[in-house]
């Protein structure tokens, strides 16, 4: 389990939940007076699995190779 900080949006999250399952961080849309779904921030990170990348995956494929968008990456959070 690791506590990570997203370098794109600054959000902090636990990479593994208390029930042992992975948590998939995805950056929120850009702020403003009325944030709209389509206003994605530049270099958005989305750790959700890309189904196209997961199709036919090998058992040893690193999870990082399957995510939708890396954005600016993550770093350990204090």
């Amino acid at each position, binding site marked *: 389990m690791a506590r990570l900080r997203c370098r794109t949006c600054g959000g902090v999250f636990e990479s593994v*939940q208390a*029930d042992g399952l992975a948590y998939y961080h995805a950056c929120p849309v850009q702020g403003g007076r*009325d944030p709209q779904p389509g206003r994605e921030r530049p270099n958005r990170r989305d750790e959700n699995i890309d189904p196209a990348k997961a199709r036919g995956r090998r058992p040893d494929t690193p999870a990082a190779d399957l995510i939708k968008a890396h954005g600016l990456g993550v770093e350990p959070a204090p």
Partner: protein
Amino acid sequence: MADRPVLDGEYAARLRDVAPLLTPGAFYFTGEDNLRVLSLNASSVTELTIVGRFLAPDGQIQAFRFRHVMFTDRTVATTTHALGLGWLLDVSVVAASGTPLLGQVFVRLQVVRGLGGATQVLATLAQGVCNAVQHLSYPGSAIRTTLEAPGAIRSIAGTDPAAGVEISETVPTAARWRLLSLSFTCATAIAIADRVVRLVFDDGASIYFQSTGLAVQAASSTFRYTWSSNISYGNSVGANLTGAYGINLFMLAGHRVTTSTELLQAADDFSAPQLAVEEWLEGA
């Protein structure tokens, strides 16, 4: 009335020899046919045990046991197991360890022709959920979809956003959520303005539901917001606000639940939201 077809040849000879041993539902394997196990898993358990009995043409009943390694990220894992020539009498699948909730492990048992490379699916024997106690079996179990099982209840800690950034949680790939409740705090900075916090549901492109907090939040205050599908009306008591939304508000993979705050200031700070969800596996 047409004559009954005459069962002849090698198969008939084998069948005559072993007929007394066949169970109802025994499935003939030609030797080219194999047992395929397909899994979808949303638990931390990584292995299934497949056990069963196979009747060989010489009348010998062989017990078999295979292992199947699952992924833990709701993506499909497939293994194919050779049984040989004869009749599959029964097969049963169970989680090898751990305590996955019912609904977190989904299995499909199929008969395929071929072992490696191109294979052809010939039959689906059973399909549904199992865990470490409740088996999926053939014969006996029905062919069910992932959505016919009870959803697994999960408590999820979301992302703690940076100051001045809204909360946003996304339904993971191959999951379906019914959001039962969501709770978080908002600490407003000293900048004078009345914030109004809304809870917004979108499909990744368009908003389909929105609920507005019942009171404004002044500067230099900390409010706790809780929204739930299990209450009829929201209320506001001091710094505790509750809000309601529809009980059957299902969210598909990629859908988001976010906050959208009027006059949110750069130093305002949301906590990490805690979500209670009912979760199903989707796909496969």
